[in-house]
């Protein structure tokens, strides 16, 4: 079972362990960022999540990634069990992503992600780098460029992704429910990556509430124009396709519910019907108007 972590203490720990000069070059993303942002609404209690995703910028900053990895390894952070560094001969696709436990604790792990360059068309691109004699892979997710818009600032001074832009990035990543399963089952259940990521869109929207999500539309438009100028219109028109497909699939919605209640929404008593209603609101309030804006 996934143990709960306190997002504020994890932020403090990362802030403490990273060289000060690197603080401005990292952004905390994913469920930890969302848990931190909504910590008051979550009652300041531990949240069931396992990974602290760290996105390193600017795009293509392999040297910075190497610095961070070296610094953490030197500071006693240890690779998680299945993060076995490769050699110079290991093909990039077989190299592990940097996933490190903090010193003396296995409560969570930190994972490094790169910022995708503006030219990247693939959903995910991989680069390799060496740190302390081992070789690792650095993934860059195309739509996570969006989180560069409207960064939030934690009290310790680290940047983290705004929930609104994470929601859009996750929605764009999965226009359909096709695709691979998660590398590991979630609490014993095999889940598609699409169900997990789209479930997070619903979880974030649930925590934000409608008053807040209604303010996302102009941010989404700005983000799409800023980061995908040529592709902004087609992306805006299809942004809601994944959520729509999720709501139409009973099985995938059940999986999305499973991942969110075993993660960000754990212990809140959120039902599948709650998530469905949140999704229907998003389609009416945001994805529909967004598609309209980009159709004109």
């Amino acid at each position: 079972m996934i143990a709960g972590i306190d997002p504020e203490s994890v932020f403090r720990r990362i802030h403490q362990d990273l060289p000060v000069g690197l603080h401005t070059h990292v952004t905390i993303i994913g469920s930890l960022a969302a848990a931190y942002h909504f910590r008051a609404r979550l009652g300041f209690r531990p949240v069931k999540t396992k990974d602290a995703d760290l996105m390193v910028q600017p795009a293509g900053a392999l040297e910075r990634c190497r610095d961070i990895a070296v610094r953490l390894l030197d500071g006693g952070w240890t690779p998680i069990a299945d993060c076995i560094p490769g050699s110079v001969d290991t093909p990039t696709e077989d190299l592990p992503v940097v996933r490190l436990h903090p010193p003396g604790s296995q409560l969570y792990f930190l994972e490094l992600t790169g910022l995708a360059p503006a030219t990247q068309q693939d959903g995910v691109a991989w680069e390799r780098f060496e740190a302390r004699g081992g070789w690792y892979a650095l993934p860059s997710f195309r739509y996570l460029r969006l989180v560069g818009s409207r960064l939030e600032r934690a009290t310790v001074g680290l940047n983290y992704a705004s929930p609104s832009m994470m929601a859009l990035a996750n929605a764009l990543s999965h226009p359909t429910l096709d695709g691979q399963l998660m590398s590991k089952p979630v609490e014993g259940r095999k889940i598609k990556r699409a169900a997990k990521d789209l479930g997070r869109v619903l979880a974030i929207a649930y925590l934000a509430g409608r008053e807040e999500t209604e303010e996302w539309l102009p941010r989404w438009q700005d983000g799409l124009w800023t980061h995908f100028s040529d592709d902004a219109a087609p992306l805006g028109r299809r942004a809601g396709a994944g959520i729509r497909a999720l709501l139409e699939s009973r099985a995938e919605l059940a999986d999305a519910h499973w991942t969110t209640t075993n993660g960000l929404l754990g212990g809140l008593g959120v039902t599948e019907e709650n998530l469905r209603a949140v999704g229907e609101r998003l389609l009416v309030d945001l994805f529909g108007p967004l598609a309209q804006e980009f159709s004109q």
Partner: protein
Amino acid sequence: MAPSPDERLTVHFEPASRDAGYDLRSRDGRFVVGHKNSVASARDLYAGLIILATALGHEGEHVRAVFVAGRSVVSPSRIREEWQRITNVLRPAVARRLAVVILSDPPLCLPDEPEVRALAEELRLLLTTNERKHNLREDHPAHGESRVPTIKFFEVWKVLLAHWLLQQEALRIGELMREANCSHPTVIRALQRMEERREIRRLSNRSVELVEFPHETFGEALALAESLRTPIRFVDAAGANGDPAALLRRLERVAEQEGTPKMALGGVSAARHYDPEFDLEGTPRIDVSVHTFAGEPELGFVNQLDPDARWVGVVGKVDPALRRTSRASEAILVVHPLRRRESLFVRRDRGMPLADPVETLFDLHDLRLHDQAEAMVRRLRAEKRR
């Protein structure tokens, strides 16, 4: 001790879920029952049978669906004709599993089969006793039943009370007939009942008005409010962040965009208008009255045949996460259909109209804001004296 009708009903039948398409299910699993107090038109019969026919699609082949009404203003011969027409257009496999029972004396059973007659006898005993206890009749009472109030009586009474609270002049009988949409005999019977209680006075110009706040009838109306008003309640299915104040803002925005003059705010929102010193922090829920005089669904608010209640009308535009609920305590929005001819809505320079103060008082009592309701009446009457 012999079991009460309620207990007997529970022994033989169980209530169906909200979305089942019928009201009761026999515990032996042989029958599902759609129940209506009265068949007012052939359309009632059509609607009832079609809903049951749809529900049969989810039932085993051995289950029969029976449309049961306590009485009918449609004649038995007309019901037989309509029954024939409806069953002719249904698939035989469905039609042979349907039945109609009107609990007259003797009951009307279609088809006239022993199984249906036996069920009719059982239901006549159980439902009519319960109905007398819990429900209202829609129109004038039969001889010897003058102590039982009717929906029409309350419509007449509510119009008089609204005028009294709004400091309006006494009403002539004709105006009362028009506003309440009641016939002359119905209005006269209603006034007789109020006179017996010394609740009204007749003026020299053939008009009538209330003497004072009619506590006795108001208490009676409150006790019957659920049957009288048939509220449609909605819950915020998105869960934790239900916010009535935000819902109100959206409702007003949609009302402005759509131009919906047949919709008015009631409840706490209206009470704050009628009583500027209304004593309540926040807004616990939103009450809306919808004028549906023609008897047809208006504005997309009422779509009774949609079991999933995916509201595509105004409610859907206000919030697609709203779902119907039978639990009063969890409702964030309550819609009250108003079926009289005149809405008695109070127009404002800006914003949605307000439901009349009588509807507003009912809303407040439904919210258990009894003290605030009484204060509102005092405030309105004090205004009148000034």
